[in-house]
């Protein structure tokens, strides 16, 4: 008969192995109300501790239990992994580029009928019909719902420096050059040091559509008369703009780390009195003002969005690519998922997506919204700082400068054509543009390289 010394450890290990799945099943069995999985990179709690509070607030306001899976770093890597492994996602946030990349997979549930029957989403005073038509696919169906008003990118400048140096709003590329040169050479911060740059950029050309727009050249790809794709920044019409940037770099007006700068780098340069202009999202006009005033209340800092330069092609800005909420076809809670998406564009949803969570980000006192210290730190951004709804009016008003900047984007902004080749465009155009701006190659050579590389990548036929 086997001794206890030998039997006991074997028995213990076997028991543990057998019991583990039972514990897991028991945990699953306790679930009664379905919990929707909401995969997002922008919506929800601002920190990990706030995510469950956000989920609870959504449940309070909709009756639907959600669990947000929020990843801000490398969102699309995590999304790809979750899609590939068949994770049970019910609501997925993605940008228009990722939507295009996934389109061939036939992953998305058509939402047209639900949208048309929704009292919120079908209201043209919330979302105009033209916006729905813009994202309608070739089969006539709509597969995603907007997350927020995406505004656009534009030149953003130091208004206080412009006033101090006696410059008005520049109207064309020559006046832009004069202004940027002044930011570099005329000591706008008044410290007696040659420590300011005219223009701070990142990722080589992010996002200088406003400058190329003077020649009517949109970022990304367009379709020619025959329906073939071409890149406007890879045509001869773009040469004057490349030469303009080249001049800025050669004269030391363009901050020299424009190739390696990330968004945080050029934002910091702008906010810390090192650059007089940058090109970024219109919402950041308000955020720049808010953040600098919070850190340095005595600073004369004032950011303002500028009308883009006018040229032979008119004026043009890039309106933001749509961030969309989609429902995967394999979701087992499609109705509940759509209910949450619809809620996102209701008044209560707008409050949640901006101000945040009741009694955490804000309180109600005498019928008025009062931001808590936490709410102030979150800068009224819980995924849609500017809701898509045309009915929305922020009870605190918009951050200084945002309304004017948004008006400029609405007038001159146009969304770029979304294709599955966005990353290829970035790879080819940014690298050749950098060499042109540095003076390593001529604009003609750079453009020829771009065309050749697009052909090699199969973008150009």
């Amino acid at each position, binding site marked *: 008969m086997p001794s206890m010394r*030998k039997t006991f*450890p*074997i028995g213990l*290990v*076997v028991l543990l*192995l057998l019991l583990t799945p039972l514990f897991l099943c028991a945990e699953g069995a306790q679930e009664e109300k379905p919990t929707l999985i909401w995969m997002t990179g922008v919506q929800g709690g601002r920190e990990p501790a706030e995510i469950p509070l956000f989920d609870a607030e959504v449940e309070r306001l909709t009756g639907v239990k959600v669990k947000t899976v929020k990843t801000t770093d490398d969102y*699309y*890597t995590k999304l*790809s*992994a979750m*899609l*590939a492994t*068949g994770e049970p996602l019910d609501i997925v946030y993605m940008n228009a580029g990722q939507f295009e*990349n*996934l389109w061939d*997979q*036939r*992953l998305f549930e058509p939402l047209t009928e639900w949208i048309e029957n929704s009292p919120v989403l079908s209201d043209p005073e919330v979302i105009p019909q033209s916006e729905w038509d813009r994202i309608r696919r070739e089969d006539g169906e709509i597969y995603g719902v907007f997350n927020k008003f995406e505004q656009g990118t534009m030149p953003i400048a130091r208004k206080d420096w412009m006033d101090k140096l006696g410059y008005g709003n520049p109207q064309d590329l020559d006046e832009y050059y004069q202004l940027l040169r002044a930011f570099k050479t005329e000591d706008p911060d008044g410290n007696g040091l040659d420590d300011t740059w005219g223009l701070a950029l990142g*990722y*080589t050309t992010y996002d200088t559509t406003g400058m190329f727009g003077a020649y009517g050249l949109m970022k990304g790809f367009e379709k020619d008369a025959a329906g073939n794709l071409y890149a406007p920044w890879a045509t001869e019409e773009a040469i004057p703009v490349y030469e303009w940037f080249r001049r800025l770099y050669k004269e030391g007006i363009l*901050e*020299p*780390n424009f*190739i*390696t700068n990330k968004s945080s780098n050029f934002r910091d340069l702008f906010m810390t009195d090192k650059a007089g202009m940058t090109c970024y999202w219109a919402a950041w006009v308000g955020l720049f003002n808010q953040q600098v005033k919070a850190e340095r209340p005595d600073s004369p800092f004032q950011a303002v969005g500028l009308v883009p330069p006018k040229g032979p092609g008119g004026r043009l800005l890039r309106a933001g690519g749509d961030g969309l909420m989609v429902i*995967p*076809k*394999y979701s087992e809670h499609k109705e509940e998922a759509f209910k949450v998406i619809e809620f996102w564009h209701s008044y209560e949803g707008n409050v949640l997506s901006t101000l945040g969570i009741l009694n955490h980000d804000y309180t109600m006192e005498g019928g008025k919204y009062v931001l808590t210290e936490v709410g102030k730190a979150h800068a009224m951004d819980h995924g849609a700082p500017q809701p898509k709804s045309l009915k929305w009016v922020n009870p605190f008003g918009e951050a200084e400068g945002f309304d004017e900047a948004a008006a400029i984007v609405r007038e001159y902004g146009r969304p770029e054509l979304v294709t*599955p080749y966005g*990353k290829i465009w*970035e*790879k*080819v155009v*940014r*690298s050749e543009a*950098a*060499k042109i701006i*540095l003076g390593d190659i001529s604009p003609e050579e750079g453009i020829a390289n771009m065309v050749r590389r697009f052909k*090699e*990548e199969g973008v150009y036929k």
Partner: protein
Amino acid sequence: MNRRTKTLQRIFRARILYLLLLPALLYFFIFAYFPTIDGVRISFLDFRFIGENRFIGFENYRQAMHTAGFWQAFKNTVVIGLCNVILTAFVPMLLALLLNEVRRKAWKRISQTVLYMPHLFSWVIVGGIWIFMLSPNAGLVNVIRDFFGLESIYFMSKEAYARAIMIGVNLWKQAGFVTILYLAAIAGINPELYLAAMIDGAGGFKRALYITLPELMSTLRVVLLLNIMGALRMFNQIWVMRNEVIAPKIDVLMYYVYERGLVQFKIGYAAAISVLIFVLTLVITLISNRFIKYRV
């Protein structure tokens, strides 16, 4: 009693040990072997997130062989990988030999700590440090160049410097760790060998050449093997330090897999490249193991 019965008896006698090994084996099977096998399966498919995955045979492999991007990534991997393997094996050996000659213990410890510290940093920090150090206006390298009257160079925008920068930064990060391995091996050398050599009139150089170096060969074998196994799997450094201008010279195979698989969602194609990397690593490791075992 036949052989089979004897084997079964041996297994039964050690049954507790096998049972205790089971969780670890399960872990490796679920998280290492199964994904590898499934990756091979996916490489033969036109993989879809939902719906039917169509079997397409070797089409993904054929596409890779005919894509210029794959071959460019392969070339970058070979060049950068080979340099990393050689430099991070032999430069730390030299450093260890030099450090071994430092007599004052305090200086030795400080030097070891300073050498080892970069190994502790993540690639995000190391990449950020070196992008700043090489920046054209405020970077230390260009500040020194300016001091000597030389023109500033925007290193991170020049393809000509790209590979050298990646190799140099990798050496800076890894050298300290490998140096410690060599120093540990040197500490294990019988001091009487040095005594005997000194009596015979051997100077420091000859003692290093004829005593220290031969004793380091076993450590060198291990270091070379580890380097070779890791050479094809470079990713973190490239992801942090790349930009579109220098990308053609430094984008390696693992980054190519990431771009195709997780950005462009060409999962089947990316799986095929991954299988190729796995096979290459296996072949190179087996050949190197044989060569290093008998020649080094």
